[in-house]
């Protein structure tokens, strides 16, 4: 039982991580032509999981991707694709960001899929028809 709830928590953390990344990638794309803008992204979910004190619900707090906020679950870092830097100081590569977008989509689908299956298993163990 407890194991299953951990799984649910893990799945919802992954979904939160994916949507936080989605926000950052969308910001990057919106600023694809803004002079001096640096592309940002979150570290890998596996990395966050290994570093952090487990997966907590705190990460969905508002402002957790704000660069100025103090303590938070996820920390955005600058990422730049090789050769993406333009003379006006912008480091966004649309291609790189689209690939990140596809990756995010996949992770989000995975998280929701796991969540749904876990719920199904819980329901099955309760002996109810789904």
């Amino acid at each position, binding site marked *: 039982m407890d194991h299953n709830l951990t799984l649910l928590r893990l799945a919802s953390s992954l979904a939160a991580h994916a949507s936080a990344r989605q926000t950052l990638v969308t910001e990057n794309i919106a600023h*694809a032509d803004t002079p001096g803008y640096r592309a940002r992204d979150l570290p890998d979910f596996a990395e966050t999981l290994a570093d952090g004190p487990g997966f907590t619900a705190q990460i969905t707090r*508002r402002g957790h991707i704000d660069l100025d906020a103090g303590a938070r679950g996820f920390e955005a870092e600058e990422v730049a694709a090789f050769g993406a830097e333009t003379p006006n100081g912008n480091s966004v590569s*649309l291609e790189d960001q689209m690939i990140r977008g596809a990756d995010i989509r996949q992770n989000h689908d995975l998280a929701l899929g796991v969540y749904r299956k876990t719920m199904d298993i819980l329901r099955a163990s309760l002996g109810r028809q789904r």
Partner: protein
Amino acid sequence: MNEITRTMATAASGMAAQAARLRLSSENIANADTPGYRRKLVSFEETMAGDARAVATGPVRLDEAELARVHDPNHPLAGADGYYDSSNVNMMVEIADAREANRSYEANLRMFEQARQMAGSLLDLLRR
């Protein structure tokens, strides 16, 4: 969910900014042969839309480059030497700019669509 609405606001601001840029580009192309016309430029800036980090267009500036001197003694504006000042619009630059705006607009639209779909599949969890 709040995250996703913010994402959509950011993508929408990106689309609005690129559309403004595309409009200026077509104004420039339309006025390529207007005597004395200076090319309009706009730069993008970071801004906030509610609590979403968004993009906005800065003030519209005029290109200070030399106006093209065209030799046409029959032109009503031509001086004694037969030259008049045309616009400083470079068609090639404008077309390239419009292409880039179009490409960025599309990327923003993709992200908007993806955020929408992610929100949809999240809400689908409640379906049963």
